[in-house]
């Protein structure tokens, strides 16, 4: 039965993703494996969307495939995330170079900075796989006055980043891209919580439910750090 084989094939690919010890390569595999794989999976999910379960998977051809317009909308969202990640990655690189930190705080900053660099690489690769042009790396400038002010700025940026990802979750069409964005979203939230605690704030300033932020809310807030 072809449908069953199709389903098993997807199952195997998912299991492989789940078992991959390297989260980065898992992510890249998740995003990559060619558009074909991602789209096929999109069809699979859409075909399974009925209440009668997954038995009909593979019998539907293209009915739920991500359309060109949807893909272009997703590319825009991924490029938006890429721009924010470029900003974050640059920020931590400058902070590390500034010599303002040492010891445990420097270690944490390095860990977070490394995550942002990995996000940049993954998102850039995603846009390319989708056939789009990755957003340009912005030229940035951050006020690096004192360790305290830098940590507070870092907390602000991470909280904003987490809210920005949350704001896009419902707008992403492709399920694979949603899965990827979600896996970054919770890491930004972890960064934000850690930096909040380090700066004497609550790890959860929004309470039990995090608030999303739209592009219109986020972009003006990061504008001051973009030189060109």
């Amino acid at each position, binding site marked *: 039965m072809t449908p069953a084989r199709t*389903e098993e094939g*997807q*199952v195997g690919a*998912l*299991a492989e993703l*789940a*078992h991959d010890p390297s*989260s*980065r390569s*898992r*992510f890249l595999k998740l995003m990559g494996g060619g558009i074909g794989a991602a789209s096929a999976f999109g069809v*699979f*999910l859409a075909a*399974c*969307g009925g*209440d009668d*379960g*997954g*038995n009909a998977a593979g019998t539907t051809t293209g009915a739920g495939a991500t359309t060109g317009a949807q893909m272009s909308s997703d590319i825009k969202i991924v490029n938006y995330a890429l721009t924010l990640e470029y900003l974050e990655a640059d920020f931590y690189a400058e902070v590390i170079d500034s010599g303002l930190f040492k010891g445990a705080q420097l270690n*944490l900053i390095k*860990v*977070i900075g*490394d*995550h942002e660099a*990995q*996000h940049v690489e*993954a998102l850039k690769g995603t846009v390319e796989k989708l056939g789009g042009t990755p957003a340009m790396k912005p030229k940035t400038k951050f006020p690096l006055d004192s360790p305290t002010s830098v940590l507070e700025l870092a907390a602000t940026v991470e909280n904003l980043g*987490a809210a920005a990802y*949350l704001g896009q*979750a*419902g707008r992403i069409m492709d*399920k*694979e891209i*949603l*899965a*990827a964005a*979600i*896996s*970054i*979203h*919770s*890491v930004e*939230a*972890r*960064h*934000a*919580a*850690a930096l*909040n*605690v380090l700066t004497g704030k*609550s*790890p*959860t300033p*929004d*309470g*039990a*439910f*995090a*608030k*999303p932020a739209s592009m219109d809310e986020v972009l003006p807030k990061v504008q001051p750090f973009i030189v060109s």
Partner: protein
Amino acid sequence: MSDVNMTAPELAAVEIDGMNRSTFILKGALAAGAVYGTWAVSPFVRQALAQELIPGGGEGDIGILNFALTLEYLEATFYQRGQKLKLSGEVMQLAKLIGDHENEHVVALTKTINDLGGTPVPAPMVAFSMKNQGQFLKLAQTLEDTGVGAYNGAAPLIKSKDVLAAAGSIVQIEARHAAAIRLLTGASPAPSAFDEALEPSAVLGAVKPFIK
């Protein structure tokens, strides 16, 4: 049931002496996992769409919400019990904060399931072997990290945009809890650049030791 510290009435079921229905069916799900192997119990995609994640919990979005509700019940009870231990001021404060959030998640998920016409699953009966702050923090870290993975795994399968928004807004809080707890245990607040998406069988495997 006589516990006056309970902040969510739904948690009353947790304290009933003896085995209640949800515990029975959850144990059944865990037993199935044991027979087929954690990873062999078909992946999230198939489970979420074709069968109930929690027996009696319904399918589709309602099934996912009931799965999440079970985890939130587990967490809520965990922090409630944790607060009875001798904890430092800092840890107690965090235990209260997080416990309050988990209770709010229980209430919100219950309401959402009802609004969608589903039936919320009852609270599972749980047991945690923890006697001191160190054990409490270690279990808290496991539960919060598992919660993040569970929501992240479920998110792409959610059909309703409203349900997805709610799940996203909760998972961000679970991730923040995980990071705050990790700072206290001396672990990295963010162990990887990409948080893992867990399949339900893996989630059930992780919480199995706590279900009576």
